[in-house]
Every structure is written in structure tokens, then in C-alpha cells.
């Protein structure tokens, strides 16, 4: 799967969980840029992404994420396994 496809699909997940219809994510987006992206919604996003992409992420992998771009790369890597 291409990184840009993953980004678009993640964007839809974020919009749904955070209830932000106009949210536009970029690879550089971090939680600092999106007020609604907090510890509770973070878990919901991770679980929704796991379900959507049919992958399982470890806590270590999740904690190492710095931005949305990292999340896209991780999804790409796990989807390929």
C-alpha cells in the first residue's frame, strides 16, 4: 500500500474519532497540532486503525510514533508482514 493511500485512510479515521469533518492530516502532523487528539482519542484511533488495516500494533511501536508520517510508515510495514 502506498503511503499516501494510508494517509488518506488514516485521515478518515481521525475525522471520525475526533469528530472533525475538515481535518487534513499531513505526514508532519503531531498531537500538538490537533487539540482533540488526546490520550483517550489516541487509544480509539489506534484500535480503529488496527481494525481498518487488519494489523496489530505493540505498545512499543505506538510509543515510538512521533507524527502521522511515522504512523503511515508503521501501518505500511505491518500490512506487508
Amino acid at each position, binding site marked *: 500500500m502506498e503511503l499516501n493511500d494510508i494517509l488518506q485512510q488514516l485521515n478518515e479515521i481521525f475525522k471520525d474519532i475526533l469528530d472533525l469533518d475538515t481535518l487534513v492530516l499531513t505526514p508532519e502532523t503531531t*498531537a500538538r497540532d490537533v*487539540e482533540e*487528539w*488526546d490520550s*483517550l482519542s*489516541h*487509544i480509539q484511533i489506534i484500535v480503529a486503525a488496527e481494525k481498518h488495516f487488519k494489523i496489530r*500494533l*505493540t*505498545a512499543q511501536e505506538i510509543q515510538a510514533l512521533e507524527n502521522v508520517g511515522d504512523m503511515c510508515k508503521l501501518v505500511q510495514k505491518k500490512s506487508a508482514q
Partner: protein
Amino acid sequence: MNNLIQHIFEKIEELSPIHAKKLKKNLAGFDDLYYERANAFLHKYNQFLMKNDKTMDYAIDCYLKMNADMLAETIDFAHTGKYSSSKFEEVNKRVYANPETMAYYMHGLLLSQFLWKHHYQVYDYYINTLPTYATQVKNYLEIGAGHGLFISKAIEILDPQTRFTVVDVSPTSIDLAKNFIEEGRIHFILSDILDFSEESCYDFVSMGEVLEHVEEPLQLLEKIRIMLTPEGTVFVTTPTNAPSIDHIYLFRNVKEIQALIHEAGFEIVSEQHFLTEDVSLERAEKLNVSIMYGAFLKKRKTNIS
């Protein structure tokens, strides 16, 4: 915001911006009394850290390690709908008997006492209600002292003649509580409470966040009922849906906790529940957000004692 709280918040914001958002909301909602209490506590805690050649940054690191553990457990809980362990021996080996893990866990919990809204609310409920019992309590037992904050407050509130006993299964926890409280009046006992055999002698038993750490919480409550004097009081707290490295008994909702209390032969004198996230009760139930339950109990008279 005082300097120590400011420092703690800024450090957490730098290292864990997602978590810092929750803290920011918590801190914005607290009143002046909170800041007075938090300031006094953090000053004492900072002195304690310095005496032990540690800094507040060490404590913040412990807190974030504890949070990282909780994130891992929460993800696992989201996958399985269960806590990762259900056996006491498993968590005893992994946590209570592991000094390194216990150290960061206890320091993390100490900070959470004033950083997590529901922890502070439980503390507030306890110290606001305990004076009601000030003249009646002669023999106080705390099960699972953790860091010792609650019993140190009980010593301030209750009669100077009151006897204080702590029973805890973790040597690290007992050492930390002993050093943090610096109070010669407490008799510390290293034991599993289920192996502790005293009957009808305690007129107050405090057991904060212990039921979720045992395989059979009903058995523990029944044991407390035996240890309690006929007119004695129990203060109990426990959370629903709270995955953690040492939680083994899962309460899925507050009704399950209340039912257990009744089954063990107690009546609820007063109770409170506190949401651990800033959401409505309806949303909390939908998302399985943890709810902290706290109650003061008495023996139910209709039961044969």
C-alpha cells in the same frame, strides 16, 4: 499554578504531549484548595526525593514509565476485553516482588495522586469524610499502603491515641511508605492480608485500590468483615475497566462493585464515583472508560456476624 506543578507539567508536556493535554484540563479545573494541598504534598515529596539522592525529574520519569505500562495494558484490554493477568502469583513475581518495577510504579502513583483528577477527588472524599469518625476510631488498619499518603492524612485527622497498622504485600511499598511518612506510630506488617489473622479488633479499615489486585475480592471483603468491630467502618475504593500491570480482577461497572459489597455482608453508608476521563457518563460506559468507585461501609445488621 505553583512552581513545582508548573515544572512537572512542562516536563510532561515536552516528553508526552498527548498525555499533557489531559493534565492541562485537570489542572485548569482544580480550585485553590487543590493547589494548597498539592503544593504542600509536592514540597514534602521533593524533600523526600532529595534526601534519597533523587530529583523531581526522576519522579516524572517514573510517572511516564507507569503511563507507558498503562498504555500497553489499555491496548491489550481493547483487544481482549480482559486484564492481561488474572493470577496473583503472576503479578506478584512481575510487580510486587520486583523492586525496580515497584519503585517506578510507587513514585508514578505518588505523582498521579495530584495529577489525575479522579485520584485527587478520591483523596478529597476521604479526607472530607474521615473527620466524621475522628472520635470513634481507636484502631485503624490500612491494607495496601502503597505510598502512604492516605494513612499520613489519617494520622493528622484521627485521635492522637489511635493505633495505626499497615499490612502490605510489597517490601518496596512498605519501605517507601515508612520513609515518606516518617511516623513512628505506624506498625508495618509485611503480609498478604489473607494470611493475616486478627478478629473483631479494627474499628476502621482503609483499603484504597486493592480489590482489583486480588483473585477473589469477595473473600477479601469477607475477611475484612471478620477483622472489623461490630460498629466499625471500611473505606474502600476500586476502579472499573482499569487495565494496569498489576490489576487482576475486572469490575466492568459500578453495579458489580456494589453487588459484591452487599454479598460480603456490608451496607453502603456513603459512596461516590469519579470518571477518569473528561467525558459524559454515557460516553464513559460506551467507551469502557474507567470509573473510580469509593465508599464508606458498615456491617449489615441483618447478617449473622
